[in-house]
Every structure is written in structure tokens, then in C-alpha cells.
């Protein structure tokens, strides 16, 4: 009995040691980032590392925010993310309601097709999608990054919502139907309020995805000035300007949390990006 207890104790000590060790490894990069953001330029490259810079350079943050229209860029990114979340919540839940609670010909087949497209790699979609938006005159506007969210919000979100909706008993809806409620009313006043947890999950996924998305953003916004300039870019010149800023903004914003020194690196990167955009 006693030896068993001792074994358990030893096991717990090992468990907590391993977890603590790896937690530290996981946290060190974050801590290092914060510490570096408070250093003077000369301190950044010093070996060995100074974990607590003296004195902390809070000015770095002010400088970084002032060095470019930080809040404008921040707003650009947030704006896209918010629109994506709104569009996805609305359209994906409508479609999921149709897939789970309404009966129509071809419903199951279409749902299987939906599942099949869930993991279509983006490589095979990017060129035709770009060409489509280019033909529509949408490249270098917000539209290509927003409209798809309103068209169902992606197979995965529909699947997630549909699975949740299926678990809601039909009797609830039947009762409302007998009382003469329209399908839209049932969807908006019964289904959605009951689905808050899964709607929250979908929001978080969409927000993260939209905020982090790089492949589509850089393809549909930041380039193509040359290719499209002849036809319509002039009309949209202000939009184009803001979008170039948007991408710049992402990169700058990211770096601004580091410090001046890093900020220089980021500027270099910006030059590289700019160069790429202009081809």
C-alpha cells in the first residue's frame, strides 16, 4: 500500500516536471518577444540575453504606432475579419438549417458534395478564383475577401452547424410550425438562440482564419496593379491605395510589437514586398 502511494507520488513529480519544463519552452518565445520590445536597439543583439531590459523602453510602442497609420491598418484588418464573421454566421447557419431541418430533393446528395469539398486544397482554386474576381473587377477591393463569406461561409462551418442543428429535437420546430410560424421565423427565433455555443465556435474559427489569412489576401489584394491598371484601377485608385496599405499595415503592425531595430527589418521586408507587387 505504502509503496503504491510512493509510486503515485513519484509519477506525479515526473508528470509536473515534464509539463512545467515544456510550458517554459512554449512560453519563452513569447516572453522573449515582450522583453525585446522593451529594449534599446543596442541591447537587442547582446550576448548573453538580457531578459529584463534596463531601463524598459516604453517609447518603442509609441514610436511604432506613430511610424505609420497603425490604427488605420488595424481597422482594415478588423473590418475584414468582422465582415467575415457576420457573413459566415448568417449564411452558414441558414444553409445548415436547410441541410438539417428542411426536406428537399437532392438535399443529402448536396450535403455529401459539401463534405467532399471541405478539404479541397487551396492550390487548385486560387488561379481561377483570381481570374473570376479579376473579370468582375473586384481585385483590389474588399469584395473578394468578403463575398465568399456570405455565400455559405465554407463547407466546414456548414458541417459544424449542421451537426449541432441535427441534435435539436424536431418537436420544437413542429410545435412552432403548427402555430403558423414561417421557416425563417423558426430559424431565427428558435434555432439560432438554441445554438449559441456552436455559433460562438464558428465565430472564433472564422475570426482566426480571416485574421491570419495570407495566401488569399496577398493574391487578391496586394498585387495585380499592373494587370488591371489599364481597365479599372484608376477608378478604384483610392481603394487600391488603402489595400496596399492594408498589407503593409499587417506586416508593420506585426513588427511594431517588437522594437525599433526589428522595425527596420520590417521596413526592409516592406521594400521587398513592394518590389514584388510592382513586378
Amino acid at each position: 500500500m505504502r509503496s503504491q502511494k510512493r509510486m503515485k507520488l513519484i509519477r506525479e513529480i515526473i508528470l509536473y516536471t515534464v509539463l512545467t519544463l515544456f510550458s517554459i519552452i512554449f512560453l519563452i518565445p513569447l516572453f522573449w518577444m515582450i522583453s525585446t520590445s522593451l529594449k534599446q536597439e543596442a541591447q537587442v543583439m547582446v550576448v548573453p540575453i538580457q531578459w529584463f531590459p534596463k531601463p524598459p523602453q516604453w517609447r518603442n510602442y509609441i514610436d511604432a504606432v506613430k511610424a505609420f497609420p497603425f490604427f488605420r491598418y488595424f481597422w482594415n484588418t478588423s473590418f475584414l475579419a468582422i465582415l467575415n464573421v457576420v457573413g459566415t454566421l448568417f449564411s452558414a447557419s441558414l444553409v445548415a438549417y436547410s441541410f438539417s431541418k428542411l426536406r428537399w430533393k437532392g438535399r443529402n446528395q448536396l450535403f455529401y458534395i459539401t463534405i467532399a469539398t471541405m478539404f479541397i486544397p487551396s492550390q487548385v482554386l486560387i488561379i481561377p478564383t483570381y481570374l473570376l474576381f479579376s473579370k468582375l473587377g473586384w481585385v483590389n477591393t474588399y469584395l473578394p475577401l468578403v463575398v465568399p463569406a456570405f455565400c455559405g461561409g465554407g463547407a466546414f462551418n456548414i458541417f459544424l452547424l449542421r451537426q449541432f442543428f441535427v441534435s435539436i429535437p424536431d418537436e420544437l420546430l413542429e410545435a412552432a410550425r403548427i402555430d403558423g410560424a414561417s421557416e425563417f421565423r423558426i430559424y431565427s427565433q428558435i434555432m439560432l438562440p438554441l445554438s449559441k455555443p456552436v455559433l460562438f465556435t464558428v465565430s472564433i474559427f472564422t475570426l482566426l482564419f480571416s485574421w491570419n489569412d495570407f495566401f488569399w489576401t496577398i493574391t487578391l489584394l496586394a498585387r495585380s496593379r499592373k494587370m488591371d491598371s489599364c481597365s479599372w484601377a484608376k477608378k478604384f485608385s483610392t481603394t487600391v491605395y488603402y489595400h496596399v496599405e492594408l498589407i503593409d499595415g499587417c506586416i508593420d503592425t506585426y513588427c511594431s510589437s517588437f522594437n525599433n531595430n526589428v522595425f527596420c527589418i520590417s521596413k526592409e521586408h516592406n521594400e521587398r514586398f513592394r518590389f514584388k507587387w510592382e513586378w
Partner: protein
Amino acid sequence: MPEKPKSSFWKRKSLVGYLFAAPWIIGLVCFIIGPIFASFFLSFTTYDGINPPKLIGFMNYKILFTLDPSFLKALGNTFYYMVGSVFLKVLLGLIFAVLLNNAGKFMGVFRTIFFLPVVLPAIPVMFLWMMLFNPSSGLINQFLGVFGINGPLWLNSPIWSKPALILMSLWGIGGIIVIFLAGLQGIPTELYEAAELDGANKIQLFWKITVPMLRPVIFFNVVTGLIGASQVFAEAYVMTGGGPLESTTFVNLMIYKLAFKDVQMGYASAISVVMFMILVPLTILLFRIYRKQAEF
């Protein structure tokens, strides 16, 4: 007499169903199915984005496999990254999930710490790792230096650039841990209790109960991981630009460069179609998993 209203009732119901599904039907056709067919079509053409596409048969594919070593190199790079990152992520993710599944104090704190990097914005994380990988002043090589190890050049070395990106991807292991944790909680505790009564030790429990019971979850993580890793793009674009010596030119980066910098959209489409075909088996596997889940 009662038949007629009934059928029109169902017709109307059907119509409502289509109406609710309409956004997705449009999205599916315009943004997924249409583009897939267009990619196949474009892959048989030469197209510069301005003049109409010209059909050239299988020419693009012929060039791809016989005359363009950079494609096979990009394919190799992508496989290297896919296998390396998914293998390590799933293995370590499973181990950490088992450790974190223990009842005990602070487990919530540990889970949060391991999940934290997942919710950090992706691009700043890349900049952060660029500095951590700095050969002289970076944290990693300074740490190795403590033990007298002369750290590699990481992102500046054709040999170490891919392992560096894989190492970075491990920081985002939290997503996989969460999925494993959910799976672990679905294993009935009686199985463990019965095995313990029979005198099985922890390692036996892991291999004889945890792993077999989690097989579907492991499988799911491997397949989604492989499909996700096949699309690696931003890391290479931001951190290495595809170098050094094309060692981090992945397929997506190559497609991007060809289609939007060199405007060889037909050729780039051929690459995307080849990659798509390679990934079809994985997609079918996932389709089966999800269909099973949908039919409860």
C-alpha cells in the same frame, strides 16, 4: 382531393429548402466547383491573363515532369514538410494530450499554455521565429551555445531551413492536443480499470488501450494535418522567400510565383492539378470520416 394540396405543400416546402441553401449553392458553384473545372481546363492551355488561353494539349504536364526540375524539387520540399511536421505534431500532440488528461491541479493552466500559440496571429509569429532562428544572436543558437554546440544557420542553410520551419510549426501543436483530449475523454475509464486490475502498467495501458481506442482520432489528425501542411505558403513567402537554394520553395509558393509573377497561368494550373490529384486519396479518406460522423 387531398392529394393536390399536399403535393403543392411539399413543393413549397422544397422551395423553402432551396431558398435557405441558395447562398451555399451559389458559393459552391462559383468558388469551388467552377474553379476546379477551370483549373483543369487552364492546365491544358497557355495563358498570360490578358490574351485568351490557347489549348496546347498535355504540353504543360510534359514540361512539368520531364523538363522542369524545379517542380520535382518543390514537390519534394512539400512532402518533406508535410511528413516531418505532421509526424512530429501528431506524435508529440498525443503524448502531451495523455499527460494533460491526468486529473490534477494546474492542468487547466498547462492546457492554456500549450494552446496559447495557436491563437497568436500567424505573421508576427513568423517574424518572432525569424529572430529566434538568427544564427548569431537568436535565442535558439545562444541556448545551444551554452552546451558548447555550434548551432546551424537555420533559415539561411539549405539543409536546416525545412527543419526550422517544422520546428516552428510544432509551436502550434495546441490544436491537435485539444482534438486528442476530446478523444481521450471518450475512452471509457472501465477499460483502464480492468487492465490495471490485471496488472498492466502505464506504458502497456498507453499502447494497448489508448492508442487503439484513439485510432480514428489519430487517423483524422494525420489526414487533416497532411492536407493542411500541403498548403504551406506564408511561412516560405514571409520568412525565406523560397530560399536558400530553393530549399523552401513549396508547391503553393511555386504556383503563386508562376501564376502571378511570371503570369504563366496555364503552367501554374497544371501544377495545381497535379497537386490536387496527389491529395485526392487523402480527401476521399476525410470524406469517409465525415460522412460517417454525419450519419448518426
